[in-house]
């Protein structure tokens, strides 16, 4: 199980949180997703064989949120 932390641009609406959470959870191989609203961070655990951190980052940026950095720990 790999862990990734995505740093986003500041989040302002609580509904953004649900959007990001929902979209990431639907991805195959994603185990847990935690969106930190105030810190504008997404912490996720995923199976690196099924999905990559870059793909997850793309999912978030496709929703319209800028991903500033991605940290991955395997």
């Amino acid at each position: 199980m790999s862990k990734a932390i995505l740093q986003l641009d500041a989040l302002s609406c609580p509904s953004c949180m649900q959007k990001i959470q929902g979209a990431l959870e639907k991805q195959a191989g994603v185990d847990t997703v935690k969106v930190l609203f105030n810190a504008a961070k997404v912490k996720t655990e995923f199976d690196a064989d099924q999905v990559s951190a870059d793909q997850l980052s793309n999912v978030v940026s496709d929703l319209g949120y800028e991903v500033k950095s991605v940290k991955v720990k395997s």
Partner: protein
Amino acid sequence: MKFQKFINQHLNQITLATAILIGVGFAGKLIGSNIIYTVSFIVASVISAVPIMMRAFSALRFRTISIELLVSIAVIGAFLIGEYNESAIVTFLFLFGTFLEDKTLAKTRHAIKDLTEMAPTTADVVQDDGSTEETDVDFVDVGDVVLVKTGAQVPVDGEIVSGSGHLNEASINGESKLAAKTTGDPVYAGTMLDNGTVQVRATKVGDDTTFGKIVELVEDAQDTKSPAEKFIDKFATYYTPAVLVIALLVGLIFQDFRLAITVLVLGCPGALVIGAPVSNVAGIGNGAKNGVLIKGGDVMNTLSKVDTIVFDKTGTLTEGKTAVTHFKNSSDNDGVLAYAAAVEKESDHPLAKAVVAYAKTHGSDFDQLEVTASDTIKGRGILAQVNGQDVLIGNRQLMTDHQIELTATQSSDLQEIQHQGSSSVIIAIAGKVQAIIGISDVIRPGVKESLQLLKKAGVKKTVMLTGDNQLTAQSVAGQLGIDEVHAELMPEDKVNFVKDFQKSGHTVAFVGDGINDSPSLATANIGIAMGSGTDVAVETSDVVLMSSGFDELVHAFGLARKTVLNTKENIVIAVGTVAFLLLGLLVGVIYMASGMFVHEASILVVIFNAMRLIKFRIKTPKLDSDQLSATEVKLS
């Protein structure tokens, strides 16, 4: 999705354009041009409605009825019945309100932002050939050696392998005094090397460092919801759809389309949704800045209700180190202390160590003294010869055994020392008592004053639980003005006392040093750890006092009460706004645009109210305002 991103990135420009168009529209009306007026407002409505509808739609895809949806329907409605100015003004106010919300929210969050920005980013890793290479901290491995120069930040947790210097560790423990460190000493990521040069072998890197954990804790804490927030979240999920239904009913029953869409705008739950979280974010941020880590809104809430505080003695109320507190020299011989230290220096006994430390700090030169025939008698003391003279150091029994009498003054000195809960050591040279030394655990500075402040802040009862003996415990409690004392306890006894207090209806906070007290910390409603940045303390407790200071404890209590009060104020403001708007609608003075204005204003009011928490600080008698601002400058 490209379009969505474009809109999100240009939200400010869209808001500005809408404002200009509204201005042009009103100017057109002034000069009597109906075309300019109508066209400007139509264009303004359309461009400002796009981002709102987009958000409404994407929230709907996740089955959430958002505030944006209410506004979108209202705006479309107003547009359909030709109220272009209403629709334009409502959307503009909504966008502008969001803009101000973002800006002010960023202010309430800046404490964590400051914290994360203090995190080190690069490290100079020492290579095999002795050269250094600048590396991103994320790529430094455990075991790597990094070079830290004067003025630079330590990038990892580790141990100094060469060099020495003075470190500013304020980011870890809030302590602004410099710490001198040399080979073998631990250093922490995020601290600054004030002078010197050191090489550090990394033991923890990145998010595993103490600093990384603190940041993570504060970030998580700000998102941990208080009961009030949880209630409002639940409320909002039903409230927003309910507004939609009510508007529909109003429209059907009164056959009044305009009234129905007005209800949609007025019913927006804006200030209610943001009021409670924003207070907690500001409160937790304030704590983090002042060395108090509070793990979330629920902890904040419970902490504000605490009426009984239970303290561990050793290491919490006292320093946890024995030191000489009395030195009664009844002879005219200045060398007594040196003689005592010379004899005691070979001993590992805590009392002996305290005597040696005291002699060192008082400039006694005892290294040259020749000690012979040293003999330790268990439970009595030590016999020895120093420079050929018989020296006895020990308790009264030792003196009695050797037929040495105390004078009346010496006896009363001894009693005085024992009465204060200190251990006593008697020194006799050549068959005569020369001096009596009192040794005890030193009470932390400022504890008494802090306990008084806590009482003033509404804490009803203070209790001390200790494994130490009854006499010492009574003495410490007496000096500090503690209400209740229980001594000679095992760790499980402490837990039982905490449980008993809880059973009799008290909300209990346990203050301990975080390691041996963990069962009590876990049992109490609030576990408060005297931190100094240790992992165990940071993880097991609800509140961590970073520099283990009692003024931080007072601050934590005051802050919790203030934050909970602030949350309540915000809820009153929010509910009051909705009531005011409904009343206004009934008497016919509030319409869509004015309703939206009041809403956005109320959102800003709750944010500004929460921002007062950022500056909150309990006035401690020890610090004057100059010192305070000086410490604040160092921390920020």
